[in-house]
């Protein structure tokens, strides 16, 4: 698609030729994830996670569809129907644990995928659209996961729904009507559960659609690579199939091993015990916490404790949404012409601080709202916003970057020694 030397689809079997002339689906697949998609030859294992996220989405959709055959979206029976799946449905426990832990794995994989993009500058031109579509997927994932967590109608389901929809109540003037519109009442109840089930079933297919756009947009400039240097010649690339299908197959195996350990031996490790208590509108759990993948954002939400012009609660809500929305502007906030963090020594330091910062936020988000966790999350929140909105724009103007290799092949054919050589100085030995 993207490079002139991309292999053209030449069907071998007469049937495939017949099909290709009438419906060029084989051609599309060949060009997207087959031999017709040239990919930089130097991708490392961090480039496995896009495919893994796709597999996780497929697993969630498949297990979700079969669970929906047994689940009852009824406030009276929802909790029992989940237990019915766990106890009576054939292999129901496997399907439900796979779906619940599959959500966690989907987020783990997606977070690694996102941080890969942050480190290697995958958001930079010409891949801004890939980045933004990815963020749309991330937002849809969060909505889907949140509504899915409500469905078992346990204590955390109920109170999570109450707290999160309560955030919308913080919006001035329209807050309360919006909250009631979301819930279909004054507190989570039957109307809430039914609409959440409907949307929880719908959104994964929307995600799938955006994933198609995400991959489409990726294929226009082609995949990035760890050096951040553009592909210049056929020597820089290998066909996706068989090279990266094989590598992704191995990556998928490792992913499934870790997933199986969690699913079969620690299925409730990432869950909260309170969600095995049926929802009770009269009794609030001691600590309401969302699922772990929301903890960093939950910490940002709770970091704003003092009114300042606007109410503290509104600041928290604004900051939480801003913390994700600002990522949409990242391609224009970080204007450094060098993509890869490997050649940006100062950026790299701040990047690892950001990783630590998000981990701290995540930890604080999972802890009760007590000191010192609140103060810690305030410091971490400050760094989070400073990193993207203050540090990166300034850094991209003043940073002294390392010299880039002339091409991908140069960096891989001669090892990395050449990367440090000043731009323009030819290596002593010829390429081949």
């Amino acid at each position, binding site marked *: 698609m993207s490079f002139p030397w991309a292999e053209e689809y030449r069907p071998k079997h007469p049937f495939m030729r017949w099909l290709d002339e009438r419906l060029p689906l084989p051609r599309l697949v060949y060009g997207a994830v087959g031999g017709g998609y040239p990919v930089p030859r130097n991708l490392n294992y961090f480039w496995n996670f896009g495919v893994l996220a796709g597999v996780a989405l497929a697993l969630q959709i498949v297990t979700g569809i079969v669970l929906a055959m047994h689940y009852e979206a009824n406030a009276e029976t929802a909790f029992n129907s989940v237990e019915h799946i766990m106890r009576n*449905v054939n*292999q129901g426990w496997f*399907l439900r644990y796979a779906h619940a832990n599959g959500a966690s794995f989907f987020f783990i994989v997606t977070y690694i995928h996102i941080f890969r993009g942050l480190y290697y500058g995958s958001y930079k031109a010409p891949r801004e659209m890939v980045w933004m579509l990815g963020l749309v997927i991330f937002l849809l994932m969060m909505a889907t996961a949140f509504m899915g967590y409500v469905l078992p109608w346990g204590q955390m389901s109920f109170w999570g729904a109450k707290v999160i929809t309560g955030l919308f109540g913080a919006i001035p003037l329209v807050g309360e009507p919006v909250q009631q519109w979301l819930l279909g009442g004054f507190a989570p109840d039957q109307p809430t559960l039914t609409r959440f089930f409907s949307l929880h079933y719908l959104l994964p297919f929307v995600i799938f659609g955006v994933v198609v756009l995400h991959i489409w947009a990726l294929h226009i400039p082609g995949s990035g690579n760890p050096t951040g240097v553009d592909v210049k010649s056929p020597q820089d690339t290998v066909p996706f199939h068989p090279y990266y299908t094989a590598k992704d197959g191995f990556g998928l195996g490792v992913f499934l091993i870790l997933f199986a350990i969690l699913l079969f031996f620690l299925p409730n490790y990432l869950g909260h015990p309170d969600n095995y208590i049926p929802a009770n509108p009269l009794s609030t759990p001691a600590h309401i916490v969302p699922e772990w993948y929301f903890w960093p954002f939950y910490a940002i939400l709770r970091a704003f404790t003092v009114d300042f012009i606007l109410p503290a609660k509104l600041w928290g809500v604004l900051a939480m949404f801003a913390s994700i929305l600002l990522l949409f502007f990242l391609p224009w906030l970080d204007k450094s012409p060098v993509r890869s963090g490997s050649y940006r020594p100062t950026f790299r330091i701040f990047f690892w601080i950001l990783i630590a910062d998000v981990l701290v936020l995540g930890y604080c988000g999972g802890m009760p709202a007590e000191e010192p966790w609140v103060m810690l999350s305030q410091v971490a929140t400050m760094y989070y916003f400073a990193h993207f909105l203050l540090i990166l724009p300034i850094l991209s103007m003043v940073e002294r970057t390392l010299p880039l290799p002339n091409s991908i092949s140069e960096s891989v054919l001669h090892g990395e020694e050449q990367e440090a050589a000043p731009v323009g100085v030819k290596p002593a030995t010829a390429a081949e």
Partner: protein
Amino acid sequence: MATVEHHEATAPAGEDGLRRRDFINIAAVSVAGVGGAALLYPLVNQMNPSADVLALAQIDVDISSIQPGQAIKTIWRKQPIFIRHLTPQEIEAANAVDVGSLRDPQTLADRTKPDKAQWLITLGVCTHLGCVPLGASEGENRGEYGGYFCPCHGSHYDTAARIRKGPAPTNLEVPEYEFMSDTAVRIG
């Protein structure tokens, strides 16, 4: 393609080497295929009847209050069951029929338990297209042969619930059951 040429140029041409290497790829793909197929099993099997449904596949019925000539309807596996206490005349009528002339040749003895010929237990599901035949309740049309009558397409069953007239291909089905005592039957 550059890489393909490169591949051929650098790989030693040995036949065995190539074959061994192909074998690994084929094995990996095959094992992945087996894994994928195994994953299908729970996805398919979850649609089979669940444990609670199977647990209800056996019911105990108290038949002490059914007088001769009466019948009751009960539900087994979400399907109607007719339990009929036959009168001596009905038993006689059923035994008088020439079995060889029937569409689905069965004697009354084939369709009841030994020494319990007065208890006719059948599924209340017409073997034609699955309607519930009339005749189990008081005052319902029992058809021309005094057994059951299916109003959907006019199948007539006799006092042994055998098909005598109409489109149904076979007699009303007799479920598996056993007498726990003179007054209690376990169906299923």
